[in-house]
């Protein structure tokens, strides 16, 4: 009993101490405005250096982050849609379009963004209706082992070659690039996004020779490392990770064209502190931030006035030739067909 009393007494002291110190520190530091941003959380140290710290300096506003993958963060936004605490959300386009349809994000007044007109055309309104602005771009190409594959791969069609049978991995249909895979397979064999039948047929034929359908780029990296896979379609942002394996790999921009994906930044419907939200978006699109993130291979820029040295450009979706080769998808159409295509993929291909 004596011991318990001492413990309770100590606990009270500690609580009292913590309480006073919190109040004190709140009193000492000047009250700063805050804005909450929902984003992935990759490369957070670089994001903090190039975005968070410079934003506090320029706008005297602190950034709070809500981190997680697209699906988790979208679920949190749905749950808090009545009284959102987050002002800005960064999403992959397929998830952004979902957020738009569910009324979770609102149109952006682009006249409030100083940097808006300096963006590439395709980054200005990728979701249509100004629901989001593109802040980075990544292409969808093919990577292969140059030591194992004798005849260079130059096109999507090459993935069906006999010498690659059992050595190819494709993304799973539920990934960001899943539906684009169906579209590119269709284009390779004479169809297109509106006529995907030939793509489904060809993918069904290829299916037996596919090692596995990867769900994450990290999974693909280990498939290459283990010698399981020699060739696979890959999103550009995973290229750096693949190069780190020190395997002899080559990046191919396929003859059929590369799909360009634009990650978007949007304002939450009924968000608190929209002034800071606009400040943040403008900051994210500014030449300084876009250049700094490109130089550290975090994000490929969406404005043409960012200059990157040649050896770094190789790891980004960058440069006139590469940008001109990009094909941009109609995400509204993709969301319309998504559930049918996923079902059809599960029935005909992933069996």
């Amino acid at each position, binding site marked *: 009993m004596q011991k318990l009393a001492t413990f309770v007494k100590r606990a009270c002291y500690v609580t009292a101490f913590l309480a006073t110190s919190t109040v004190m520190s709140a009193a000492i530091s000047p009250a700063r405005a805050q804005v909450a941003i929902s984003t992935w959380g990759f490369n957070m140290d670089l994001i903090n250096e190039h975005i968070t710290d410079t934003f506090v300096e320029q706008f005297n506003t602190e950034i709070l982050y809500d981190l997680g993958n697209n699906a988790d963060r979208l679920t949190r936004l749905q749950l808090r849609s009545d009284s959102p605490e987050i002002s800005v959300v960064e999403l992959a386009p397929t998830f952004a379009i979902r957020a738009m349809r569910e009324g979770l994000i609102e149109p952006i007044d682009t006249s409030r963004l100083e940097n808006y007109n300096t963006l590439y055309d395709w980054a200005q309104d990728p979701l249509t209706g100004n629901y989001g602005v593109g802040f980075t771009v990544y292409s969808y190409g093919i990577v292969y082992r140059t030591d194992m594959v004798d005849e260079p791969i130059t096109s999507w069609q090459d993935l069906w070659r006999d010498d690659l049978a059992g050595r190819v991995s494709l993304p799973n249909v539920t990934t960001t690039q899943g539906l684009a895979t169906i579209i590119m397979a269709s284009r390779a064999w004479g169809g297109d996004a509106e006529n995907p039948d030939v793509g489904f047929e060809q993918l069904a034929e290829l299916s037996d020779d596919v*090692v596995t359908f990867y769900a994450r780029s990290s999974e693909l990296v280990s498939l290459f490392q283990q010698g399981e896979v020699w060739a696979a379609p890959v999103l550009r942002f995973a290229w750096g990770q693949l190069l780190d394996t020190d395997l002899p790999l080559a990046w191919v921009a396929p003859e059929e064209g590369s799909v360009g994906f634009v990650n978007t930044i949007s304002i939450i419907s009924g968000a608190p502190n929209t002034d800071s939200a606009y400040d943040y978006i403008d900051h994210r699109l500014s030449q300084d931030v876009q250049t700094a993130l490109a130089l550290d291979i975090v994000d490929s820029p969406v404005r043409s006035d960012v200059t990157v040295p040649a050896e770094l450009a190789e790891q980004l979706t960058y440069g006139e030739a590469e940008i001109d080769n990009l094909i941009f998808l109609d995400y509204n159409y993709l969301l319309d067909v998504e559930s049918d295509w996923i079902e059809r993929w599960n029935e005909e291909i*992933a069996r």
Partner: protein
Amino acid sequence: MPRWAWSLVIPATAVLVLAFVLPLSLLFASSFFAEGSFTWASYTDFLSSSASRRAYFRTVRIATLVTLAAIALGYPAAYAISRITMRWRVVLIALVILPLMTNPVARTFSWLVILGREGLINNLLTALGAQSVRLLYTEGAMIVGLLHLFIPLMMLPLISAFENIPQDVVPAAQSLGASQAQIFVRVLIPLTIEGLTIGATLVFTGCVTAYVTPAILGGSRRLMLSTLLHQRASTMLDWSGATVVAVVMFATTLVAITIIRRVFGVFRSPLGLS
């Protein structure tokens, strides 16, 4: 037992009700409602999709095979362990428990090293002049991985069941003229049936609900119910579809437990006398 002793159950019950019974009931109820009205739709959707049916039958097939294999391998081993000297028994039981103490991700990754294209088996094959074969991302790989994962859960109850059989039961049966086969079927099996039932239940339900092993060794093309559930919930944000998978998993384990008890109940009557 004094009456106040009942109050000791309250904390544990409260935790179970709050953290288990309540969410599970809510989950179950929510699977019947879409936009506020009662519907079977998510269940008929599940049944009409051939991908879900494939995942369901693959789950039941793999769980059954792994359970049978665990019995075939675990039963003789458990018998042997229960009959050796105490010192060795402690060492061997520790070895049985060891896989349970390693992280499931690490344990599963060790199979990648063995079964991979440049893994132990394929290197051996190519050294012998044969073609390398694809072993990973097959049902075979999933069965081997799950067997490795769950065989301790079969062996531990069996070892304790065998240890509880008095040493002189087998000699007694022999002295009364029982053949080796009769001793096995009418003495050993009835006396260890409780251990077998527990082991089979743990292994089967473990296989149905395991996620890491099927995800890594089977990949997204050999979907089991657990990996299908993950796909529905976290990539498609289809919560009602995911709930249906969870309910189906739960129902499958309940049915399996009943079947296991029935099947093994046949052997239950001691010494084959009813």
